[in-house]
């Protein structure tokens, strides 16, 4: 093999602490290396051209680039060598930036390490073989998990793009958190007025199949050909017949059911439609509160339902959807703020969350849009907002900034003044994060036009004082203690990963960070991709996001799916396992351990042998480390390739 080695300066990123010329010089001594040079920016147009030229002029048949991480540019350079006529797998990358130049300043040690990494890459490359992709059919349907604004946007964009969409929503209506909001910042326009029509579009779009009150049970398959088992939870109402008339709700005697939609402000009936604009507008029975289901007595809804759709014997139902791509848009949950003893840990009825306040502000909410103290129904005079509850707080394991609380607090201060002109709002904040378009102007308005008093500092304690609350905190700008009499305290509770996010990620085979938010393919360049081909992300499941960002991601994910499906066939990654039929003894250990069922038993001249189904194989290599005789080898990571790296490093 004639190998060319290109050692990248990456400006001063590498050259600053690695003598790239020395690395290139050392590389010239390695077996197979016929050409080695150092270049300023290998990934740049002239840098790539240099590789192409060298391949042609020097008749190279293998290339090593020593630069950044392969997770960044492996694809780039594979295309480069392909342009020059080489197979893309006759290429190796040595990571001398993230793993060398950026983590140490000792130039001698770094240079020596870089030389070793290039030695390893060249040694492996000597064992590389050209690999060719196979084409396979794809199922051009997309599954979207989560019917919040991000999921809705993705669903509509995909459906408009001509794809069949399956939308799965955990609750009985789509709409997500946005449906609960009264107004949105910074325009203060009505949330349900802008979201409502889009929800209706989802309901009416011929390309969208909606499974509400459903969850993902199992996911199998691979990009282009997933099979998803959806669990449709029992609603005890036949939705085919339910018209959403709501008569059942008026007569249901069980009126103490938790009103999840209204964040527990008030109660609802055991059989309910969560809110008037619900999509689908169908009733469901909350079994925990239904007297018929709990005690076998009642049955009123069944008697009065004009369409006879009540079915107390309904069971969970499973449907299998075959799709080619999946978008996870599972959103977020609110942090459980009751861990904060200083805010009363839930003991004071007049300390509420921002989302509960949002429901209170909403004209369709439980108070009809009147701001009332939950304790006595009185209109508050002093409203104290506390920001960063469960955000930017290491002590509760939430060091990150939720990002949108500053903005909705300003919105709520403005709305408070609108509702109660006599009131005064106080906002305890750490910093104001108002980096969006028209955002900073908006917070300014809250302070300047709506007379919200912003106090930079944290609240140390809330005490009951008569029927009011005493809020004690610090004003760090003034360096003074602050004590305020409050009628209502609103906590700007931060976002955390949705309950069950981890379990879903395991089913989807995507990774999540230590807080449970899903990991994107690349923090900059692949914001909606995941490391699992065919699985995309939208909205707050990847990290807390406001509405515009969630919508953007919904559209972005849809664009990715549309892009993926623009091809009629997909190319399989040829980095899959292959069985050397001569070595295989048919013991089947590989089949036992393959997580994908990608290895099947075949009969070869009367002997049992293993065979890899290339399109199903994901290239993990578990089979290769399981096979005792080394008969099944993961291409591009064969035993010999890894051994050659080991031997290049350890020649004692």
């Amino acid at each position, binding site marked *: 093999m004639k190998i060319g080695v290109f050692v990248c300066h990456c400006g001063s990123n590498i050259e600053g602490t690695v003598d790239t010329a020395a690395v290139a010089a050392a590389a010239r001594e390695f077996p197979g290396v016929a050409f080695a040079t150092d270049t300023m920016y290998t990934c740049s147009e002239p840098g790539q051209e240099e590789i192409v030229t060298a391949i042609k002029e020097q008749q190279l048949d293998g290339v090593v680039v020593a630069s950044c991480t392969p997770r960044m540019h492996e694809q780039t350079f594979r295309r480069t060598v392909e342009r020059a006529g080489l197979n893309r797998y006759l290429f190796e990358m040595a990571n001398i930036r*993230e793993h060398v130049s950026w983590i140490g300043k000792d130039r001698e040690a770094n240079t020596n390490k870089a030389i070793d990494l290039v030695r390893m890459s060249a040694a492996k490359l000597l064992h590389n073989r050209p690999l060719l992709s196979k084409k396979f059919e794809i199922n051009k349907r997309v599954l979207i998990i989560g019917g919040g604004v991000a999921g809705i946007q993705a669903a509509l964009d995909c459906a408009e793009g001509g794809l069949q969409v399956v939308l799965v929503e955990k609750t009985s209506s789509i709409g997500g958190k946005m449906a609960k909001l009264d107004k949105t910042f910074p325009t203060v326009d009505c949330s349900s007025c802008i979201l409502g029509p889009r929800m209706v579009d989802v309901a009416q779009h011929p390309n969208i199949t909606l499974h509400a009150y459903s969850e993902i049970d199992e996911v199998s398959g691979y990009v282009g050909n997933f099979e998803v088992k959806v669990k449709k939870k029992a609603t005890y109402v036949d939705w085919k017949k339910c018209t959403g008339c709501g008569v059942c709700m008026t007569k249901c005697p069980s009126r103490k059911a938790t009103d999840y939609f209204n964040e527990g402000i008030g109660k609802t009936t055991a059989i309910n439609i969560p809110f008037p604009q619900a999509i689908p507008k169908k009733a469901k029975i909350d079994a925990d509160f239904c007297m018929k289901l709990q005690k076998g007595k009642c049955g009123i809804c069944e008697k009065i339902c004009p369409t006879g759709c009540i079915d107390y014997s309904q069971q969970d139902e499973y449907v299998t959807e075959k799709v080619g791509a999946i978008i996870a848009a599972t959103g977020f949950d609110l942090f459980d703020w009751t861990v904060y003893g200083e805010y009363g840990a839930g003991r004071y009825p007049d300390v509420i969350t921002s989302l509960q306040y949002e429901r209170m502000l909403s004209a369709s909410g439980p108070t009809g849009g009147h701001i009332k103290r939950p304790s006595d129904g009185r209109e508050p005079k002093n409203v104290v907002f506390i920001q960063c509850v469960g955000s930017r707080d290491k002590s509760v394991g939430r060091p990150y900034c939720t990002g949108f609380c500053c903005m909705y607090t300003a919105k709520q201060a403005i709305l408070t003044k609108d509702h109660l002109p006599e009131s005064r709002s106080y906002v305890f904040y750490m910093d104001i994060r108002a980096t969006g378009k028209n955002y900073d102007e908006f917070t300014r308005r809250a302070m300047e036009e709506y007379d919200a008093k912003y106090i930079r500092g944290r609240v140390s304690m809330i005490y009951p004082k008569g029927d009011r609350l005493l809020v004690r905190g610090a004003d760090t700008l003034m360096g003074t203690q602050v004590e305020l009499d409050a009628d209502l305290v609103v906590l700007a509770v931060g976002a955390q990963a949705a309950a069950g996010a981890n379990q879903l990620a395991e089913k989807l085979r995507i990774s999540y960070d230590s807080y449970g938010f899903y990991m994107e393919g690349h923090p900059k360049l692949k914001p909606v991709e995941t490391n699992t081909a065919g699985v995309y992300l939208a909205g707050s499941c990847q990290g807390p996001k406001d509405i515009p960002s969630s919508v953007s991601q919904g559209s972005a994910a849809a664009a990715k799916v549309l892009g993926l499906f623009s091809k009629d066939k997909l190319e399989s990654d040829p980095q899959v396992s292959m069985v050397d039929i001569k070595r295989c003894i048919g013991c089947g250990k590989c089949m036992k351990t393959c997580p994908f069922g990608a290895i099947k038993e075949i009969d070869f001249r009367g002997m049992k042998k293993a065979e890899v189904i290339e399109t199903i194989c994901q290239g993990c290599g578990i089979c290769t480390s399981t096979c005792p005789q080394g008969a099944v080898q993961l291409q591009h990571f064969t035993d010999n390739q890894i051994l050659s790296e080991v031997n290049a490093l350890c020649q004692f």
Partner: protein
Amino acid sequence: MPVLKGKELRIVGFLCNWCSYGGADTAGVGRFTQPTDLRIIRVPCSGRIDPLFIIKTLMNGADGVLVSGCHPRDCHYAEGNFYARRRLEVLHRFLPILGFEPGRFEYTWVSASEGQRWQQVVTRFTEQIHKLGPAPKIAGPEASKTLRQMEAAL
């Protein structure tokens, strides 16, 4: 093969592509300074790591071997690190019978987001290996050369 005039020891890492290799990248992006001894071999999944690679590396004279994969339950391939965990744990317990100091091989889990953790892992492991010092070497391919020299001496 003396490594960098005796300043470094030979430490080989086997890292899964999706989590730990990414974590090492994240550490780089964060400029989290680390000792320079470690050389990383990238594999798709910790499940690809045949424990025999680790044995082979130690037999070849490496002073330390560090394996890192996705946290259990976070495997990109769903199950790879579960298999790896069993195989690596067995190896970890098996190596001492051969006379390898227990600390020469460790395995751990580092996610792609845990740059700082990666820095700590590398730093701690490197310190551990330096504390153990160079590993005793096993007569390998060069042994026959010695024999030949012995023959020549007579």
